């Protein structure tokens, strides 16, 4: 396969950053001290729902499940609509994936609650629906960017439809697809905070509580780890993306 273009350095930098992040979110004492210092008048500076570690864990699980499902289905749909038999759905998929992005996440949640009730599941569904769109879009774009000559040459060697997909189209569009997954996951980390409004937990809990109870300490407790987490996941997936053979 092609030469790897990514340096070990970026992986090491990422590992260091992840370690620092883990240390930060497990240092409950540190948060308490610093937040009490910044907001001396606030009586309770730590959110009562659970430790920061647990909130991050909940948050990641939400994102992992929804983005994982979005990846499986998004890539699947992208592949199907670019096959000869799924061609008629290509315009639909393309339009949906650009239109869907203009839909606010809160609206998606609001629609999901009556159908699925409160909690984890409707949030996952909302995040899934929201996160699948960039993945579909990039999968289609990636597969369509494979030149017709290359595909023709592949068929000319006697490859089957499936072999052309597996050996030519997917490897050549992997990077673009991966970039769609990254965009989707990062969007979902932010959007997942909204899930707290319907009781899904995660880093949204302190943020919502902070907003409702006018407690800026809570707000920071949710917002800072969420921002760092988004950055961490973005770098992680970005590194994977770069390490995929550039064609």
């Amino acid at each position, binding site marked *: 396969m092609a030469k790897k273009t990514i340096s070990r350095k970026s992986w090491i930098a990422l590992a260091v950053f992840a370690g620092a992040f883990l240390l930060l979110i497990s240092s409950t004492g540190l948060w308490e001290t610093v937040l009490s210092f910044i907001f001396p008048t606030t009586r309770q500076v730590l959110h009562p729902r659970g430790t920061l570690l647990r909130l991050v864990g909940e948050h990641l699980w939400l994102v992992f499940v929804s983005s994982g499902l979005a990846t499986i289905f998004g890539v699947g749909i992208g592949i199907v609509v670019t096959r000869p038999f799924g061609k008629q759905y290509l315009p639909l998929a393309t339009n949906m994936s650009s239109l869907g992005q203009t839909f606010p996440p809160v609206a998606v949640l609001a629609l999901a609650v009556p159908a699925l009730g409160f909690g984890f599941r409707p949030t996952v569904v909302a995040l899934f629906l929201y996160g699948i769109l960039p993945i579909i879009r990039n999968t289609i774009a990636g597969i369509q960017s494979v030149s017709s000559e290359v595909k023709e040459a592949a068929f*000319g*060697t006697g490859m089957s439809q499936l*072999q052309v997909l597996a050996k030519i189209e997917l490897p050549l569009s992997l990077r673009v697809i991966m970039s769609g997954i990254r965009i989707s996951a990062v969007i979902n980390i932010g959007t997942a905070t909204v899930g707290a409004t319907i009781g899904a937990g995660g880093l949204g809990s302190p943020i919502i509580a902070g907003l409702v109870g006018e407690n800026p300490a809570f707000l920071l407790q949710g917002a800072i780890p969420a921002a760092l987490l988004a950055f961490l996941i973005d770098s992680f997936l970005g590194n994977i993306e770069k390490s995929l053979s550039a064609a």
Partner: protein
Amino acid sequence: MIKLEGITKRYDDRTLAVDNVSLEIPSNQLTVLIGPSGCGKTTTLKMINRIISPTSGKILIDGRDISTVDAKELRRGIGYVIQNIGLFPHMTVRENIATVPRLLKWEKSRTQLRLDQLLELVGLEPSVFSDKLPRELSGGQAQRVGVARALAADPPIVLMDEPFGAVDPLTRVKLQDEFVRIQKELSKTIVFVTHDIDEAIRLADRIGVMKDGKVLQYDSAEDILASPKNKFVHDFMGSDRALKRLSRRSVNEFMEQSKPLFVSKGWEQLKEVKESFVWAVDEEGKLIGWIHVSDFKEGKHLSEMLTELSDDEMLSAESTVKEALSRMLESGTMALPVIGKEKEFLGQISMYKIQEITRNG
């Protein structure tokens, strides 16, 4: 043999790309399809490996209707070099060439052996090029890889769509010469598409001239040059048609025997000479020059009358008649001697003979 029977292709947008074409493409020969851009060459070629299916008509390979054969099976037995090469950009040279052997599930060691063999065949040093990616190759190198990929599993049939299109004229001639050598060695059934008439004449056994989806004339290269059927073919062959014909003929075929003089031996040999001059050789039979018979004076040694010849004034037996003519015009002579590999004298070719060829075909 590949047989096209009344093949017509009308694309979905009603473009009539190929119009009732019937051809018999003989095995182990190189057949060129030539014609102006858009005349349907590529379309015709792609119907042979079922990349495109004909609107009507059928194609038989060795008597078997290809529409009854599994497309994948069919294609694995037909090498294909597409217009613009189409190397797989994410695979190395080695992986590109190994595509069909892998599909055929060859053993690793066999594929490996074949790869080195092929790279050498197309003139690419395996240790240098094996692991390069297509984007790291020059146009000419990429085309060699394209040809190697098509030949990888040793298919009996190879389809080539302007395989040497994207390189400079000098490199193109080099690739063509190498390709002639390869074809001599392998004797594949090759269908070769080009719009370059010189390329066609250099490579083809048979030529099909196409225009607007029809094959106007299908004949051996010599016959097409000698007797173009209509004005289009005539014009397409160019105004130097006669010279092109000479470029297809080798000196070998038209060499006249003549008895050389041994310079080391006595002047008595001159008595048998009927022409005004005679070619002269040394004791080993190697050509050294020529002697004017009228220069002869009794008692004079032959070597004193010898006019020596430079290498430019001798032809090898493989030279084309066109080359012979060009050399004659250059040196202002009416005849040139033909020599073998060891410079041994074989015979001569004369201007008179060349005129006879062009007159009679």
